[in-house]
């Protein structure tokens, strides 16, 4: 469970995130959505302390992260980013099990785990020995997701993970997340600017605008919302999709 309470982040004079409070229940997917500069990525990055906040508090499974060791905190939280950021000098297998290497686990154990995770995210076993650049964009992001699952974290942060792939691949990756979520019930915070994606993947949707939380509710309620800004986001996605 993630408990965000009145969190504020400033960059100089500008406020990136303003007094946002948000609770993500265990086993649920919370989608953060908003236009560029709305603070959604900044908010996400505060949860694993990639960004430090100025005011407020965040509790992850009851632990106040302000007092936690950032390195240990991050090792316990899965992290997927749009640019994927696979290590080009490592095999796919070593990429998937990178966190286990950071944790000092032995190689045979890591390889075994990588193989199981590749299967889980729908990658054929022959890609394990390849280098990341030999994979398609969609396959690379599957590696990115498998990597986030390596240490079996309860929480996974996904920062526009499917923003850079074509619509068909994106659809498949979304299906993969839904399937994984069906089986594993992770607590996921998922950032996107695509309302269609938000409604497909989220149990709940939180809408941010210029650093402020302007809406949060279940996906179903969000789809029916009369709130003008939410309507605007739904409309924008609709137009893009056509």
């Amino acid at each position, binding site marked *: 469970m993630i408990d965000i309470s009145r969190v504020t982040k400033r960059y100089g004079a500008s406020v990136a995130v303003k007094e946002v409070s948000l609770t993500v229940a265990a086993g649920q997917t919370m989608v953060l959505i908003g236009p560029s500069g709305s603070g959604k990525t900044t908010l996400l990055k505060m949860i694993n302390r*990639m960004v430090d906040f100025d005011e407020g508090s965040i509790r992850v499974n009851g632990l106040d992260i302000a007092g936690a060791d950032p*390195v*240990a905190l991050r090792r316990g939280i899965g992290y997927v980013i749009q640019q994927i950021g696979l290590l080009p000098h490592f095999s796919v297998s070593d990429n998937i099990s*990178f966190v286990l*290497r950071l944790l000092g686990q032995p190689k045979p154990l890591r390889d075994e785990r990588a193989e199981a995770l590749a299967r889980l995210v729908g990658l054929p076993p022959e890609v394990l020995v390849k280098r990341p650049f030999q994979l398609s964009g969609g396959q690379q992001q599957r590696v990115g997701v498998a990597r986030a699952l390596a240490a079996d974290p309860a929480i996974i942060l996904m920062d526009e993970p499917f923003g850079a792939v074509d619509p068909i691949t994106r659809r498949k990756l979304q299906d993969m997340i839904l399937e994984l979520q069906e089986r594993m019930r992770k607590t996921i915070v998922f950032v996107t600017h695509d309302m269609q994606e938000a409604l497909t993947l989220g149990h709940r949707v939180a809408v941010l605008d210029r650093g402020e939380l302007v809406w949060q509710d279940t996906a179903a309620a969000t789809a029916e919302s009369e709130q003008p800004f939410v309507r605007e986001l739904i409309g924008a996605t609709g137009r893009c999709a056509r």
Partner: protein
Amino acid sequence: MTPGPLQLLAEYVGGKYNVLLAALWQQCQLVLIASAVTLLLGVGVGVWMSRRPRLARILLRIAGTLYTIPILATFALLIPLLGIGQTPALVALVMYGMLPVLHNTYAGLRDVDPAVRQAARGMGADARQMLLLVELPLALPKIIAGVRTMVVMNISVSTFAVFIGAGGLGAIILQGIRTFHDGMLLAGTLLTALLAMIAEQLLKWLEQKVR
């Protein structure tokens, strides 16, 4: 009929190979020690300054300035401080060879894809793991390219070390020039060139291997 240069070369090498080998060994020692020190110092400082971009610019400018001083002038300047012999020769070579290693280490680390860095940090790599598992391996081809430049340069520049009494193949070349002994001159020159080419190819091979 006067003997051709190849004949002179063969005669000299045949008669004085032990002198030649001693000079070669002296040269190799000088180059190896200077290169090892430059490598450690250059990569060490390069890593350190990659965390301090403003300082890095200053240090690179200093290394760049040292690089433009003619090596003979450097030797001359070092004599009052360190006298003559191997020590000032080593110091001069290290000062001279710093730039390519420092520059390439810095550039190699700076050019690591920010997305890779962000992902590694986000997964919980600490500073040491980031350096050893991510940054240095990715910067390695560039670092080796800098080391290659430095070593090849050291081999040729170290022939000048004869002027402050550090011996080496420079002594053979210099004596060849002074005594109009073409065989001796050729032996010293060709051996130096050969050494440089071997070092170049070896390090190029290594660079390809780690890419």
